């Protein structure tokens, strides 16, 4: 049924260049749809999508919901905080009950790595990963890639520096897999307590703990959200030191390519990982990322459910 080589979207690790290109090209077309007065197409009319969110989410869920509505799908929202999961229901029982209501696609976010694969093994529905633990967040990476492509023309040989909590970031992982597949050069920069220690499977990544070196000549500087829990967990001494050594500032950006893009998956801790003036500067494409999120999610849902690009 899928118009792609993949049948579900679990992540970008192992996804072919051709599939990623198809998704990005289709998303570019949907992006144009979003500029029209009537932002809706009938592509998924008659299909039902469940947004199965076991973790809190505002942006990603809203973005998926909008994408589904723009494609004319019927959508149902399920959140663990207001559901039978609270009453002790297992993940498998939850899935089977929802599936019994004859749904077609499941968009899932869960704190556990591998949950989308588990659901796919036990269901006939098409599964789209909206974030599983620290493993993958493929649609975020795809929207990042679309944004870069729109500004820089192509991803090939572009120098992308990702800064922040790499060890716990699904955004960083998906971006690394996707960007390297598309020929970009990815540098990962984080404090050593937030850096994976065993990096033999991070093929194609360059590692750097010195921020200035990491951003030198970068075409894209992508900052990740720093969670305050990292201080409580003793992984970092203070927000202050993090800002001073890993925060994106105007002074730092002088070392990057003069036309470098600033990206962030949101929500931003202004003054911590990203200085406010940088977030609002001409380099920043953060709001475009948000808009592209809807287009990318439309493309993923459309292609996985059998829609053909072009």
């Amino acid at each position: 049924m899928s118009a792609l080589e993949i049948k579900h979207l679990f992540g970008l690790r192992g996804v072919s260049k051709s599939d990623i290109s198809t998704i990005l090209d289709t998303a570019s077309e949907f992006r144009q749809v979003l500029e029209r007065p009537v932002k809706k197409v009938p592509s998924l009319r008659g299909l039902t999508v469940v947004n199965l969110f076991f973790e809190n989410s505002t942006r990603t869920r809203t973005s998926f919901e909008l994408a589904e509505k723009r494609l004319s799908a019927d959508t149902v929202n399920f959140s663990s905080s207001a559901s039978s999961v609270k009453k002790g229901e297992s993940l498998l029982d939850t899935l089977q009950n929802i599936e019994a209501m004859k749904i077609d696609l499941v968009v899932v976010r869960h704190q556990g790595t591998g949950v989308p694969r588990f659901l796919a093994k036990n269901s006939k529905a098409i599964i789209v990963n909206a974030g599983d633990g620290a493993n993958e967040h493929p649609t975020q990476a795809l929207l990042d890639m679309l944004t870069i492509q729109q500004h820089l023309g192509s991803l090939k040989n572009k120098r992308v520096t990702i800064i922040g909590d790499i060890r716990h970031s699904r955004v960083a992982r998906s971006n690394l897999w996707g960007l390297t597949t598309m020929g970009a050069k990815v540098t990962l920069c984080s404090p050593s307590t937030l850096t994976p220690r065993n990096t033999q499977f991070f093929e194609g990544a360059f590692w750097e703990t010195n921020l200035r070196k990491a951003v030198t000549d970068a075409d894209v500087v992508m900052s990740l959200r720093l969670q305050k829990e990292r201080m409580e967990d003793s992984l970092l001494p203070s927000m202050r030191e993090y800002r001073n050594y890993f925060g994106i500032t105007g002074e730092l950006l002088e070392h990057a390519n003069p036309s470098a893009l600033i990206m962030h998956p949101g929500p931003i801790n202004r003054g911590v990982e990203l200085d406010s003036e940088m977030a609002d500067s001409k380099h920043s494409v953060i709001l475009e990322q948000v808009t592209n999120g809807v287009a990318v999610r439309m493309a993923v849902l459309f292609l996985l459910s059998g829609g053909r690009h072009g």
Partner: protein
Amino acid sequence: MDSLVIQNVRPFVNGRFDGLCSMALVNGNWVAEAPQDAPVFDANGALAIPALFALGVDFQEPMRDDVYTFEKGFKAMHLGGFYGALYESSANPIDDIQRLSALKQAFSASPLEMKILASFSKNYKCSQLSEMLELSRYGVVGFGDGNLLNATTRFLRLSMEYGSMTGKRFFFLPLDLSLRCAGSVHEGAVSDMLGMKGIPRIAETIVVHTILETALFLGQSVHLKQITCAESLKLIEIARQRGLDVTCDVSLYHLLFDDENLLDLHSHFYLIPPLRSKADKEALWNGIKNGLIDAISCNHKPVLTQEKQVNFEDATPGALSLEVALPAIWKPLVSAVGESRAIELLSMNPAKIALATPQKLSLGSPANLVILHPEKKTLVQASHFAGAVQNSPLLGAELPAAIEASYLYGAWTQV
């Protein structure tokens, strides 16, 4: 004193003591000729030894200036021939820039080379990391535990992992506090005879093992302070064979004394880590001889007289050492390992560990030195100590050598 001539002295040059000669010292340098009116000191055949570097110095300032002051500490260094020290304050953890700046300001009053060990956790509590990147940038030479390692293994890992970005060494006093419990002496024949709570060797070795395994996992260089037993040295030897950059020191007093010195329960012998058995002392001397031990540390810690004039178990542990270290250890050390290795253990290696400037004597170069007479004796009296406290187990002892004077950064101090 701008210039000085030392006559009848044997300077340590190119790895050995030269024959008797005169040294002309001008403005901190050893020069070919001093001004004609320069004062002359007759050393009577004494040795001119490159000045020493002290590991483990804590003047208890600025939180406890009722005990001691920086000024007294600097004076003690001049009296003992120490040109520099690695300073780690137990009363004032250097865990942020404000504290570091205040300490650097205090040290700026002296030309002595004071290196600072910061705390890797806030207030030594081992629950929150200190701002190690910032502290490193502003000049600390490493990160320590304040001789109170109260960390979970996870925190130990995270602190070393975060600190590894600085490239600086971590310093630990390996002692399991739960195994120490209320112990004040080595757990062995003496403690059992006296009915005192003891601190077993495993209180050290378990922590040494944990530190070394963690450091090996992270590739982080570490220094182990005040090793007291053969089992720890074995673990260090194995870790080195596995490729770890690990250095260690042994305390001066652990080479001079053992737990049999505790029999009259004099509180000046109350040290943490505790003085261990004769066999342990022998093992430490073997470590000195076979090169496993890199340095001899001073662990100079002033303690109020009233905190020592109590029964042993209620006393505050710690001892002064700067003023008496060299005359106490020189002869036994030279007889065990020779003059050159003795200077390595007291000066060169401690300086390397603390990233300080190593000292050597050479005509035409800056000279920091201590004049030691190996044939004279020193009867240690209260007046030998720079401050108002005299908490040294050597108080009242006769030492087998005598410091005559020191010349540090152009300052001549006659003892």
